[in-house]
């Protein structure tokens, strides 16, 4: 049985800011691995750059800390050449909704069998507080002399439109729900995304834990049917708003599973990896004679 202790590293510890939302995500991810009883050596965490990108440092599984915006492509390849592994992509809002948006869309349409966990804090924290692709419209910070007029990316809607087969939103202030979401997402065969609202306690002075507590609600509590894509879209479009808030209006932020469906995965369509993972196939004596025979 895999225990939390198995996932602990002894030579370093997280250096996120005290109270950072990343801590909640980190705890939930380890809980999910334990609940699923995954062998730590069969889990690969592939991250990008930013505060979220450091998460693999502090979980004792295989970790690949790639480029900003680019954790998805290596993760796709890893999940393909060794399809026995559990591959989890860790990205921030800059990674996945800025630089790497294209990769997200393509991984979703391919239905690559992996889980994308996005730490969405709606700000660029590590570079000290510039607006990100998910910063609320009307916010003013270091990179915006006037309140931003850019309406934020809606990750849930994008994922649904791109063809993701498991779409959920979590909140770093609710570890129990986040853990459950991750367990379901990892178990899901195909592309799963958990967009996790993760307050940056240092630079995002608007979207704080308290702010979220007043606005989040659970989809399952309202009887949402995750098989209904049209309804999933409707829920997704509730927030973030593409306009300024009206006087007296307050956002409602849905959490939980928006949508799930079964569809053949990328891996299912590749007979080359059918029986033995590519990585286990011997390459010592590849016989090219049949190819050479065709060359005359």
């Amino acid at each position: 049985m895999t225990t939390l202790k198995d996932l602990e590293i002894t030579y370093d510890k997280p250096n996120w800011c005290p109270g950072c939302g990343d801590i909640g995500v980190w705890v939930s991810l380890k809980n999910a691995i334990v609940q699923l009883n995954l062998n730590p050596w069969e889990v690969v965490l592939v991250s990008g750059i930013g505060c979220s990108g450091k998460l693999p440092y502090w979980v004792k599984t295989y970790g690949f800390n790639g480029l900003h915006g680019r954790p998805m492509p290596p993760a796709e390849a890893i999940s393909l050449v060794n399809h026995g592994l559990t591959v989890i992509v860790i990205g921030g809002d800059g990674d996945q909704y800025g630089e790497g948006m294209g990769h997200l869309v393509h991984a979703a349409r391919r239905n690559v069998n992996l889980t994308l966990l996005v730490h969405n804090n709606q700000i660029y924290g590590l570079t000290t507080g510039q607006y990100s692709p998910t910063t609320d419209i009307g916010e003013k910070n270091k990179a915006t002399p006037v309140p931003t007029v850019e309406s934020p990316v809606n990750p849930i809607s994008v994922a649904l439109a791109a063809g993701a087969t498991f779409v959920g939103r979590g909140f770093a202030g609710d570890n129990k729900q986040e853990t459950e979401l991750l367990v379901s997402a990892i178990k899901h065969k195909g592309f799963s995304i958990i967009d996790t609202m993760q307050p940056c306690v240092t630079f995002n002075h608007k979207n704080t834990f308290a702010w979220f507590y007043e606005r989040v609600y659970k989809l399952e509590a309202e009887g949402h049917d995750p098989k209904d894509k049209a309804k999933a879209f409707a829920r997704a479009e509730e927030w973030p708003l593409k306009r300024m808030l009206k006087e007296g209006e307050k956002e409602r932020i849905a959490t939980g599973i928006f949508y799930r469906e079964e569809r053949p995965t990328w891996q299912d369509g590749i007979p080359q990896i059918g029986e033995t993972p590519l990585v286990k196939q011997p390459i010592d004596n590849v016989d090219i004679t049949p190819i050479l025979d065709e060359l005359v």
Partner: protein
Amino acid sequence: MVDIAWIIGGEAGYGIMTTGLMMSKIMTRLGLFVFDYVEYPSLIRGGHNAYYVRASDEQIFSQKRPVDILVALNRETIDKHKTELSSNAAILYDPNVTKVEQNEFSSSILLVPVPLLEITKQVGADRLMINTVAVGASLALFYNDYQVLQDILQSIFGRKGEKVVAVNVNTSKAGFDYVAKNFAGKSPWKAEKKPQENLLVGGAEAAAIGAIRAGVKFAAIYPMTPINGVLNTLSAHALKYNIVVKEPEDEIAGINMAIGASYAGVRSLAATSGGGFSLMVEGLGLSAQTEVPLVVIEGMRPGPATGFPTWTAQGDLRFVMHAAQDDFPRIVVAPGDFLEAFTYTMEAFNLAEKYQLLVIVLVDKYLMEGHASVTTEKFKIQNAKFKIERGKILSDQEAAAQTDYKRYAFVEDGVSPRSIPGQQGGIGLSGSDEHDERGLYNEEADNRVKMMDKRFKKLEEAIKEIPAPAFYGEKEAPITIVGFGSTKLPVLEAMRWLKKEGVNINFFQVAFLHPFPVDAVAQTIKNAKKTLVIEGNKTGQFEGLIRERTGLSINHNFRKYDGRPFYPEEIVQKVKELL
């Protein structure tokens, strides 16, 4: 001696490429040495396409200027190529489509009017098959037995069924018979079947076969001229050899996927041209920093930006040597011919894994999209000689025995043993940040210096086994040509011609360009009477590199940047000017 240069030209979309390749196969099956090359614009349909095939019973290396048989599917082909005709060339055309008068040419030019379109009608074939008629008709100009073509059609189209074979045989045989009856006596060429056994291989194909032989299991290639042949060849053999070939959404995804696959333990490949390579640049650094072995094929074409997509160049040498921020070890190898495209691509995979670094195989359109005959024996020898060497990958047992595994452990040769995800005991972190031995982010000055030095130590080790530059020709010569990549082909051809005239020059080919073989190059320059660098770019990137690394100057240079390959005639002329 037989030495025939044949061109088929016409509008794109009329099967020029297939027909040209068929002619190369005919020549190869006759036991001749073949070189072929294709010129076309960046269009799917329309625009002038020309497929050039040269064949000889002597070992040839490249194209030559004079065209002996010009197959013109339209008038434009004649107008474009009429200045290239040899003194007793033949022009094969359809008189019902193209108007040609003997008085346009000297009387020694043989006009071969063949009613190509009418023949397709007579045998009940589609009008698009005029090119197949033309192949049969061409064959009759230099060879008297149709059977060779029938055999080839059987092997090309056999998979598509007997009906397809039959229509191809009927059309080409009708063309053959027409010319045999009306013109064969007037033709000056007479080829005979030779016992020589050659393979006909394209440069891109050779590189892809090298990758297959080396055990590539994953390739992520976004299509781009001139490396499409790599993608197509790998895909054609993907199911048989269990290779996953994926078209990524862009080259950024391509290189990052290739890195991911290699990290996960398989040999993987990325391939592109300069534009796509520009997108890959950050990924090059990632492979270096994470010490993930990686092979990238870069097929040069003229740039910058979209440039001159379907033409050739050698303008990316400095780019591939220096691309990505800061310094890191890499190997750059530029195969000079078709066999080297095979052997050096295989070798690239071994070097990448043994030293856990990036190997760039630098090629160009001229080599990638051309074909040549390679002596079967030579190909087989290289194939037999190759042994997979994967370097320090932990076995499952070794990984399981680890008590405190460190992915980037400081070791004598800089090459830290690699674990593969899934191995118990091998858990570790591969990081793009500067890191400590465990892969953890580390900003200490001391660690930084040790890590940089460790990465470069691998290159010092690799240098010991990297093949030295090759030397061709007599030891003593009035002129020493120095070059890299595919210029080897026209240079060797020019040397052959000069030798027949009693002029013995020599050629020094630097295939492994980075790390630069300083001593060997310096020694060659010092020993040479006169040096001439030949390269396909405007600013003399290779010449500058030689001066930078050796402190020595080259006497003369010959550069081209018009998108066209070097011609042996141009090289001979340049040499004669310098003698």
